[in-house]
C-alpha cells in the first residue's frame, strides 16, 4: 500500500526528532522547572503583606466583610483610623487600603455599592497580589453574604481585578516559549542537512521542496502540540491552572504560533550557511524574544521599545494564549494576534521558499 510521501516523511522526521532527546526535552524541562520554581519555591503570590480595612459604615454587613478580610491567609489586617492608615500607606507599610464608605450596607440593598481600594504600585508583585486578594475576598463575600443582590464593586481607583495568579500568567508563557524553542530548531536542522549533503541527495530525487517542508512542518507541529499539552497539563494538575477559553481557540492559537516560529526557523536557514551560525542566530533571535515576548514576566516596555515588542511574534503568541487560557477570550480579543502570527508564518515561508536551495 502506498502512503503519500508527505505522510511517510513526516512520520520518519518525527521519529528522528523524537530520538533526539535533548531537542524536545530541554525546552520542556526549562518550562517545567520554571513552573515548579515559581509555583512552589518563590510563590510571588503567597508573600505575606499588610492590608488596612477602614470601616466608615460600621454596619453588620461592613463588619462581616472586614472579618472576611481578617480570615485571609498571609494577610495582616489593621483597622485604624483613616488618617493613620493613609499615612502608613504613604510610608509603604501597607500593600492595600480598603475603604468601606458610609452607606455601604444601604447601597447594597439598591444593587451595587462601591468599595474604595488603594494599591501600592511601587511594589508591583505585592500590588498584583493585593489586587487579587481584595478582588477574591469581595467576590466570595458577594456570593456568600448577598447571593441575591448585585454586590459590592471595587472603585475605579483599583484596577486589575483579574483573578490571575502568577502561575496562571506563567503557564501560557511557558507554552509559548516551548513552541518557540522547538520550532526555531528547524532552521538549524535544514542547515545541518545542507552541510551533510542530505539535501543535495534529496535534490536528485523527485521530491519537491514543498513536500519536504510540509512533512517537516507536520512533524515539528506534532511534537510541539504534545509539548504544549504537557505544559498545560502540568499547570492544571500541579497548580490548578484552568483553561477558561475554548479548546478550539487554544488549538488554533498553538497551531498559528507553531507556523510562525517554523517560518522564522526556515528564514534563518535561508540566511545562514553553517550549523553553528544557524544556532547562534537562532539564540540571538530566541533569547530577546523570550524576555521581550513576556514569556516570564509582564512587561510594559518603554516607548521606543514598544514597536519592537509589539512586532515580536512570541508577544502575540503569549498574549493570545493568555487571553484564551486565563480570560476565556474570544475572536475579538485574539484575532489581531492571530493575524500577526499568520503574517509572520507567511513571511517566513514565502521568504524561505523563494530562497530554498538544495545545496
Amino acid at each position, binding site marked *: 500500500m502506498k502512503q503519500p510521501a508527505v505522510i511517510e516523511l513526516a512520520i520518519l522526521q518525527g521519529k528522528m526528532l523524537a530520538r533526539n532527546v535533548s531537542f524536545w526535552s530541554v525546552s520542556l524541562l526549562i518550562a517545567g522547572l520554571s513552573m515548579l520554581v515559581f509555583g512552589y519555591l518563590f510563590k510571588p503570590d503567597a508573600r505575606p503583606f499588610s492590608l488596612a480595612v477602614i470601616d466608615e459604615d460600621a454596619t453588620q454587613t461592613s463588619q462581616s466583610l472586614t472579618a472576611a478580610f481578617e480570615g485571609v491567609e498571609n494577610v495582616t489586617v489593621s483597622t485604624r483610623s483613616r488618617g493613620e492608615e493613609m499615612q502608613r500607606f504613604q510610608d509603604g507599610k501597607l500593600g492595600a487600603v480598603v475603604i468601606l464608605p458610609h452607606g455601604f450596607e444601604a447601597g447594597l440593598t439598591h444593587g451595587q455599592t462601591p468599595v474604595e481600594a488603594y494599591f501600592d504600585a511601587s511594589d508591583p508583585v505585592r500590588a498584583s497580589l493585593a489586587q487579587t486578594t481584595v478582588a477574591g475576598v469581595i467576590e466570595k463575600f458577594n456570593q456568600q453574604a448577598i447571593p441575591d443582590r*448585585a454586590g459590592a464593586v471595587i472603585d475605579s481607583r483599583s484596577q486589575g481585578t483579574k483573578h490571575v495568579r502568577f502561575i496562571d500568567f506563567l503557564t501560557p508563557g511557558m507554552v509559548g516559549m516551548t513552541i518557540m524553542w522547538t520550532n526555531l530548531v528547524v532552521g538549524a536542522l535544514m542547515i545541518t542537512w545542507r552541510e551533510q549533503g542530505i539535501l543535495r*541527495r534529496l535534490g*536528485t530525487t523527485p521530491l519537491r521542496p514543498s513536500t519536504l517542508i510540509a512533512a517537516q512542518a507536520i512533524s515539528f507541529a506534532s511534537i510541539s502540540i504534545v509539548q504544549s499539552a504537557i505544559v498545560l497539563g502540568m499547570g492544571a494538575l500541579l497548580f490548578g491552572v484552568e483553561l477558561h477559553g475554548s479548546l478550539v481557540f487554544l488549538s488554533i492559537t498553538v497551531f498559528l504560533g507553531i507556523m510562525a516560529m517554523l517560518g522564522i526557523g526556515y528564514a534563518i536557514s535561508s540566511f545562514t550557511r553553517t550549523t553553528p551560525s544557524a544556532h547562534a542566530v537562532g539564540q540571538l533571535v530566541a533569547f530577546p524574544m523570550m524576555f521581550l515576548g513576556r514569556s516570564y514576566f509582564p512587561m510594559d516596555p518603554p516607548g521606543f521599545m514598544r514597536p519592537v515588542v509589539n512586532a515580536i511574534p512570541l508577544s502575540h503568541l503569549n498574549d493570545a494564549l493568555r487571553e484564551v487560557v486565563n480570560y476565556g477570550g474570544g475572536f475579538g480579543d485574539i484575532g489581531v494576534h492571530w493575524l500577526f502570527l499568520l503574517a509572520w508564518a507567511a513571511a517566513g515561508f514565502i521568504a524561505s521558499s523563494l530562497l530554498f536551495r538544495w545545496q
Partner: protein
Amino acid sequence: MSHVVTFDRARRQSPIALALSVLISLSVTFRNQMVRAVSGVRSAAARGSSAAAPEAAALATTKREPERLHEGDPVLALDSVVKRYGALVAVNAVSIEVNRGEIFGILGPNGAGKTTTLEMIEGLRAPDDGCITILGMPAQRQRRRIQQLIGVQLQSQTLWQELTVEETLRAFRTLFKNRVSVETLLDRFALREKRRSLVGGLSGGQKQRLALACAVVNDPELILLDEPTTGLDPQARLVFWDLILDMKADGKTIVLTTHYMEEAAQLCDRVAVMDKARIIAMGTPRELVRELEFDNTIECLFDGDIDQESLLALPEVTGLREQADGSHFIFTKDVARSMAALIGLAEHKGATIANLQVRSATLEDVFISFTGRRLRD
C-alpha cells in the same frame, strides 16, 4: 462581580473565523492533491507503459523502456558540456556516450572535474554550454521524469544518523513512483541483520551498502555513483565491486567516478580519463594501456647527476617524465634491455640508484604519459 470586566468580552467566539481557517487548510491540501494527481497522470501517460506496477518485486523484473530511447541508443550522452565557475572552467567540452548495460568509469585526480560532470548529469548543476541527454530525454527539460528513472549516490554520502537502516530505505523509497520492496533491498545489500540499527552505528562498509541500496530504491535504469569506494577498506571495496557487477548483470547502466586506477581497470567496461576539466583519453582499460607506446615503466631515483638526454638515449626507451622529487619515469618497450643499459649508465656516470621500481603499464601510466603526474599525489 469583580470578574465582570473580563468575562464580558469572553464568549463572543466567531464561527466565521473558525470556518475560514478550516477552509484555508482544506484548500491547501486539495491543491497539493490536485498537483500530485495531475503530474502523476501526465507522467504516466508520457511513459506509456507500466505505471500501474508500483511494487517491483525484484530489481530485474520491471521493464520501463522509455519510448524515446531506441535500441542501441546511448543511455547517457554528453555533448560538449561546459561548466564554469566565474573565470574557472570546471568542465571543458566534455563529450561522453554510455551504452546500456555498461559500467562506465570517469578516472581522474581530485579536482579534475569528475564530480561537477556527474552533478550536471544528476541535475544538481546546470551546464553552461552543451547538452545532456539521459534515457533519450533532454536532461534540462525533462528533469522530473529523469529523476524518477535514475539512482544517485553522492560523494561521501551522509544519511540521517537518527534513522534505522529500514527507515532510511523507506524514506528514499517513498519519494519515487516505482518502488523496490524493502525486504528485497535488505537481502540484496546484506543489511537484513542491521535493519533495526541506527545509521550512526554502522560500519563504513555497511553505510556504503546502505547508500547504494538507497540509490536503487526505484529500480533505476541509470545509476550514478560519485567516488563510491573512497575511504573503504579493501575488503569492503571488493564486496562493493561485486554488488556493482550484480547490477550490471541485471542490465543496469552504471556511471561511476574514481581516483583508484585499479578500480577503473577491474570494474569498468570503459573509462574516460579526466584531468583539468578535460577528457584526455577514453576507451576500454585494455585499449588505453595497449595504445601506449611502451609496455613497462621503470621508476628510479638517482643519487648523483644524470642528464635526461642520456636516459632518453637508452635502448627501447620511448619517453621520460621527471617528477617533482627528482625521480624519473622511464617508459620502455623492452624492460630487460633498457634496465641493463640503465645500470651501465649509472656506473659510467658514477651515480648510484637510490630507488628502483619496474612495473607493467597500467591506466596510471596512461594518465602519467598524458599529464606527467600521478593520479594521486
